[in-house]
């Protein structure tokens, strides 16, 4: 599409740039605000006295002798051992993404290629399943999990997250698979591949953008989940979001919000690298080339 870009009229170019700039500000400003504020004390970050305090760092200077402090970071990572939660989250995300995608690509492919009505019904029922608020599901799990003695462990949370996310993964991958011409796998099968071999060697290689996008969402679901992980993981196996929530305090006791803010900022940084890697995959000409065939 590079050639297209060169021929774009100036007016359109200006509009597109304007949209990008406005959207970037809307999307990124709260994050930069948080990044900046994470080096302040609570009194400045949530400056109720005067919002400009967060810029000047008045309270931070008074309390730490400097306009910037890393207290939030050392407090979260060292004192509260946030690294444990980060490690648990890494495990959960890794397994949820791998398992979700494995099950999802198999199912999504079958749904996209089946010509029978029951495939549609399967998809439809899966979708209605998804309407169940997770909080109700979780309160249903609790007695059973306690009874079976599987409550509190990481594998339990992983399987539950995979299952809850499965309808979404199926729909998303099924939409992507439908965009891939049937001829591709059918010609492979004419050449003597089995259905699975065609799927494995012909379809999967051209599906990367779809798989990566879907994987990104599975990842975000596992990474951001609160309803499930807060309720079915033991304190020992806690993931990041419940841990961050525990920094916030309760009705009767004060928490340490700055630990939470620092933890959020420091866990967003690795995501930046991750996206940079995906981006090459998504943008690569691989698909465009393959789809022509």
């Amino acid at each position, binding site marked *: 599409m590079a050639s297209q870009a060169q021929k774009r009229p100036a007016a359109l170019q200006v509009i597109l740039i304007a949209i990008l700039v406005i959207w970037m500000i809307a999307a990124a400003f709260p994050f930069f605000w948080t990044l900046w504020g994470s080096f302040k004390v609570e009194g400045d970050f949530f400056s109720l006295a005067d919002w400009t305090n967060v810029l000047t760092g008045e309270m931070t200077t008074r309390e730490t002798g400097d306009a910037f402090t890393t207290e939030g970071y050392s407090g979260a990572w060292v*004192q509260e051992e946030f690294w444990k939660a980060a490690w648990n989250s890494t495990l959960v995300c890794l397994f949820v993404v791998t398992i979700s995608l494995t099950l999802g690509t198999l199912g999504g492919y079958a749904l996209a290629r089946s010509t029978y009505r029951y495939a549609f019904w399967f998809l439809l029922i899966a979708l209605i399943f998804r309407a169940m608020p997770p909080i109700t599901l979780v309160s249903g799990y609790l*007695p059973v999990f306690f009874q079976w003695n599987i409550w509190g462990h990481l594998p339990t949370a992983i399987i539950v997250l995979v299952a809850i996310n499965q309808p979404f993964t199926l729909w998303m991958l099924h939409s992507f698979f439908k965009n891939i011409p049937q001829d591709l796998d059918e010609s492979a099968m004419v050449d003597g591949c089995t259905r699975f071999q065609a799927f494995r060697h012909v379809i999967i290689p051209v599906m990367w953008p779809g798989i990566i996008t879907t994987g990104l969402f599975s990842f975000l679901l596992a990474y951001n989940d609160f309803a499930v992980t807060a309720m079915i993981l033991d304190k020992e196996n806690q993931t990041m979001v419940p841990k961050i929530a525990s920094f916030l305090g*309760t009705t009767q*006791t*004060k928490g340490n919000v700055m630990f939470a803010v620092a933890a959020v900022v420091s866990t967003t940084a690795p995501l930046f690298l991750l996206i940079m890697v995906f981006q090459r995959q998504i943008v690569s000409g691989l698909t465009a080339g393959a789809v022509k065939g």
Partner: protein
Amino acid sequence: MNLGKILMTGSFLVAASATTTMAAECGITDGRLSIVGNEFPAIQTVARNAQACEGLGEAKANLTADHQKINLAGMQGNPAEYTTAIVANSSIVALINEDVLRPLDDLVAAFGQDIPKNQLITINGQVMAVAFMANAQHLVYRKDILEQIGMEPPTTYEGLLETAEKILAEGILEYPVGGAYMAGWNLAQEFVNMYIGHGGEFYEPGTAQVSINNEAGVATLEMLKALSEYMNPDYLTHDSNATSAEWEAGNVALMNMWGSRTGVLMDAEGSTPEVYENTMVGAPMTVAGGGTPASTLWWDGWTVAKNISDEDAEATFKAMKQGISPAILSPETMGEAVWMIDGYEPAPVNEGVFSAISMQTPPYPMLPHHGLLHTALGDNIADFLQGKESAQQALSDIEDAYMTAAREKGFIN
């Protein structure tokens, strides 16, 4: 900030957090200890000391803010996952209702003779829990501002309104009164306080039949509304975190706040000297000429699960007793709570809770169906405060919502 300083801060924090608890002899030979409870520092201290007992076959603690959502399910299995739940007087009810707690009379008689009688929580003559700390809401005020307008700290809510009016009239603060009035649990708690202060009865005696649509109920709502006029217009979104933040920012001069949260208001962190040096605690206030303070007393205590072996129950009892023994008090843990433990020396900041106790503030109602009313209150008062409906309508909505819920839960037929 240079690297050396960062490292120093880091190592200091490590040292501070590594307060190792010495292993203790508690007379346990075998058995399991598994604690579920909230996660504030005082409870962590208790759990740490209980786990330090020698001889326990298994010792673990799951302390989380979501404890109320998991403790019931975790104690219903057989054997129960948790051998003890740390609860408060509001949350013990849910466990008693489902009959998952073990009466402690035998264990107290055999191993707990030295637990002071006033720490034992008895329901219908049976010991169900052992309390170890107290809490209450009471007045917090700014000394400098009251001096500036030449008034004494108020002892009644009517006095508080007068004081607030004066502060407003002198143009010192725009919104002089603060309060955790967030719709939901917090607002319902304020209603419970104020209704008790007005001498109201929540139920028809001996039944689960609610009766708050009366004069005391209307007066309560009117008072809450009168107070809200002096608050930041966002008051319906202010939980106690937000209210404390308002206080530390110096925007508020008078508020009704949890005793457990006053310590951090008076320390140097998060505030200017002008605010924290002048932050004072007072007694809970009365209302409408009543003698009972418009506040409630709270305790936190531990229980023992019913669905566990007698051996585990004995080990848990002994370990938890060790967890609240005078030995756990140290200069570090002393300030974590208003302990009900021998040897506890209260700090000035705890005066509010102590006056609440000495003024015979009633405890928060420990009734099987009160949780339902609390939820109904929290959902329906905001409409009145926002002027969307009359006090009678709000009270009747609360009664209807409660009665429906109570019918679903089998309290009323």
